């Protein structure tokens, strides 16, 4: 790989691959950097692919079949699980059946979330440098009380917004868990309401590959290859900005020139110590303080999913207060006692469990320190206990557990001195958002 590129896309998750492929198909020259430690694993559910992305990437030519996850289910400490479904009617019916007083409000809630979620009037901090300024939208926002009130709701707290709609504490806890936990947000922090709006977006409903079991990631890699994306597994050692380009040097002395470094997810960025996730930085909306920790439990036969539904995405929280408490613990650099945990059944005898509420670094005795092997063991143990609390006997079914950590590496980031870095914060509709973002940056370049 040599020469000059418009983007170096770093990461091999679905949003990175989709953004790289879409930009390449639009005529950009793209280099794609895969992680050197890439392993072949059963895929977890990914965000849905919006129609415009499907068309841009001509996915119909790739024999890809996706099916939505069956439900979003929350396992609270007390009482029956709370479930919502892709179908508004099904959700209303389920809420009515469970005796929720809010079942009639569900459709209105979804409609209003969709209406409230405009394209942001300005870009979030992570990629402001590379987006065309949208100052006129800002002026309009401040001048019009109606717009301002809407913006205040959009950028207010999730707790206030949910309190405005629902009286049912259990439903509020369920929505908080599914909307906020994937990004590690707190329900009382400014800006968290926006996660609710994205969460209500149909593109945020997660999907899994089905049919002949062609993984979405494999398909997107193929699309990238067909679109002329150049890939590498080399290790970058330095990136310095010179004029409108960043000069990226690899460990074999090869160098390339790129206009932008593009991270489609905060996890991808964090693995390279980039964005506000670097070091012990604590920052915006779950990018900063948090590490995402995943455990893949290989099970012997007989694991029975809650509600008998192996196709759902599950969240474990004791009650609604767990969400903000976990966010507070993460930004303070400590483990949370009542950790919110998300899990799903992969279909290959695996349970994939994760939480974004781990600290990116630990604060002990007035010092910050990175993760150790003991921390990983402790984290895995907490997750195992949380799963066992909702699925009795779960621990005895575990044959093996593999862990993955998205935390900043020790030492300086090769991209630390590079200003031409774009990081997308956590998005529920990460695939379509990544494609829109890379489009936006390309438009700015033009």
């Amino acid at each position, binding site marked *: 790989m040599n020469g000059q590129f418009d983007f170096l896309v770093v990461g091999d998750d679905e949003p990175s691959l989709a953004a790289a492929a879409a930009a390449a198909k639009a005529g950009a020259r793209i280099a794609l950097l895969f992680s050197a430690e890439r392993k072949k694993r059963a895929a977890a559910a990914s965000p849905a692919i919006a129609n415009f992305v499907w068309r841009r990437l001509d996915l119909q030519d790739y024999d890809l079949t996706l099916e939505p996850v069956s439900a979003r289910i929350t396992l609270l400490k007390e009482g029956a699980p709370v479930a919502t479904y892709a179908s508004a009617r099904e959700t209303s019916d389920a809420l009515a059946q469970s005796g929720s007083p809010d079942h009639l409000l569900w459709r209105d809630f979804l409609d209003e979330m969709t209406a409230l979620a405009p394209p942001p009037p*300005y*870009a*979030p*901090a992570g990629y*402001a*440098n590379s*987006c065309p*300024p*949208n*100052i*006129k939208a*800002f*002026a*309009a926002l*401040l*001048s*019009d*009380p*109606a717009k*301002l*009130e809407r*913006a*205040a709701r959009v*950028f*207010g707290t999730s707790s*206030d917004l949910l*309190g*405005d709609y629902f009286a049912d504490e259990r439903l509020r806890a369920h929505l908080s868990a599914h909307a906020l936990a994937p990004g590690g947000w707190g329900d*009382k*922090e*400014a*800006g968290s309401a926006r996660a609710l709006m994205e969460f209500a977006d149909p593109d945020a409903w997660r999907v899994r590959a089905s049919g002949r079991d062609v993984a979405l990631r494999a398909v997107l890699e193929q699309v990238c290859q067909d679109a002329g994306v150049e890939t590498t597994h080399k290790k970058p050692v330095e990136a310095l900005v010179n004029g409108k380009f960043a000069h990226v040097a690899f460990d074999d002395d090869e160098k390339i020139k790129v206009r932008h470094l593009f991270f489609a997810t905060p996890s991808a960025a964090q693995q390279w110590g980039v964005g*506000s996730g670097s070091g012990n*930085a*604590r*920052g*915006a*909306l779950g990018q*900063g*303080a948090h590490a995402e920790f995943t455990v893949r439990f290989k099970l012997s036969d007989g694991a029975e999913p809650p509600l008998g539904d192996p196709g759902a995405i599950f969240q474990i929280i004791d009650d609604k207060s767990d969400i903000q408490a976990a966010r*507070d613990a993460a*930004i*303070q*650099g400590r483990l949370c006692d009542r950790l919110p945990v998300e899990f799903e059944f992969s279909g290959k005898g695996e349970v994939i469990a994760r939480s974004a509420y781990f600290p990116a670094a630990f*604060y002990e005795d*007035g010092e910050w320190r990175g993760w150790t092997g003991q921390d990983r063991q402790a984290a895995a143990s907490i997750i195992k206990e949380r799963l066992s609390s909702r699925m009795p006997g779960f621990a005895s079914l575990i044959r093996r557990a593999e862990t993955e950590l998205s935390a900043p590496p020790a030492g300086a980031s090769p991209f630390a001195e590079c200003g031409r870095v774009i990081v997308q914060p956590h998005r529920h509709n990460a695939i379509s958002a990544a494609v829109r973002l890379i489009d936006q940056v390309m438009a700015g370049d033009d």
Partner: protein
Amino acid sequence: MTNPLDGNDENKGGHRIEGGIDAVVIGAGADGLAASAYLGKAGLRTVLVGAGPEIGGRIAAREIAPGVQGVDGEHLITILDPDVIAELDLYRHGVEFAARRLDTTYFFESGEVLRFDGDLTQAALLNLEDDSDREALEAFMGDVLETAAFLRPVFAGGGYAGPGGNHQRQLEKVVNQAPPEMAARVQRYLYATAEDVLRARFDDEQLRTLLLAEASFRSASPPHEPFSFMSLLRRYAGEAAGLQGAAAYPKGGTVSVIDALRRAAQAAKVDVRAATPVKSILIEGDRVAGVTLADGGQLRSSIVIAAIDAQQAFQDMIGPEMIDIGLQRILTTRRPEISTARMQIILKGVAQDEATRRNMMRRLVYAPPPEALTKAFIDARAGRVPERVIVEAMFPAALDEGAALDKRQVMSVMAHPLPFDEAPDDERREAIRSVILDSIEIFAAGFAGRIEVDDLRLASDEAAAARASAGAYAAKPDVMQQWALAAAVTKGARISGFYFCGPEAQIGAGLSCASGRAAAKAALRAYKKGAA
């Protein structure tokens, strides 16, 4: 049987209808005084009514110990609107600054100290050893003050139109004409967290720590949450106005500004009536028609300006049926969690040496480590008293000889963040008192042994003194919520002739008077057009 025509004292005001009034201003705090002075100065027959026996609202002189007068409310001037000073001629009415552009000394947990010159644009004067840090700070201050100056119209005056024009068009014009670099900067800063911005700009931990403390001070927005960097821009917008300085101390304390505003109002022939509580605002059709007083009397007027808290103005005096649903939602869902405490401490003895006296002429700030500050916000939000708080301290007598005491001195302190309580009990008060004194002890070792008396004033005490709803003096939320709240309270009633300039109309903490000015100017424009 009482004859209603007897004219005894009890019935004198009762049921009396008073006409011939052009404007009634409810609330005799700083904004009410400013608004009434503007109206009176324009020739309108204006009556200012305050519920309490004193004028001044939360800023008032009070005996904090036998023979020692203190001033409640603000202890420094940081964002007083320079246009109000000029237009109401406050210097002629008695405002005199004993000290402007106060220098600040920052104290850190480590025991280290940084001295910051009062002129923020001269950041090079900071006692930083590293040239690159000094250059980074200079560049940062340049950016921040320029952006704060650009945003100043957005911070001032709630949602009302500025003088001589339509606010929306005016603002759009200013913002749309922003050079691309400024546009990009506003966009970048708008959503940003203070932590992210400062971490990206500074390697020096102490600089980050002191700027985080400045950004978070008196705001309910923690430095790790979106919009928190805007709080710093708001704080520096007073400096950006170029007149008041980052912090100034008026001779006689901040109550002297209230006195000057009262004189300005009296010079403008405003009829100032203390101890005249209002029961309701009269509305006829979609127009305001005056106010009904608690004693049953009425003041008939086609302009009413409410300079009281929004809960009282909209919910109690106007009634929920008359107000916009969005405003109702905002008023009913607000749950303040964070507050600032004020403490005045009388210390035994006076400074003996010149160096100490010079130090006492500075603004002293204890900036907790970022981790402790984050924890403080988390604790306060959860209703717990934090272990460490930001402390801003100053010695009035060091700046103003008139405040000097014999063999004693007063230290005035503001501490933040603390939990907000509507009705704090003694245990809570004692916990807050302890944490403030502990935080001061970090930079003034042995100070506790010199305390003769301390006087703690919580947000609920200030609200009670100003006869306001308890939440009115809680810490302000992030600027986005404040903009929305200010827009809602100034435009949410849609009653012709009614204007609002209570604490919710102001963006950021401090004594400003900008919203009183904006409400009065809006009322005058309507009056001149014959709409009011």
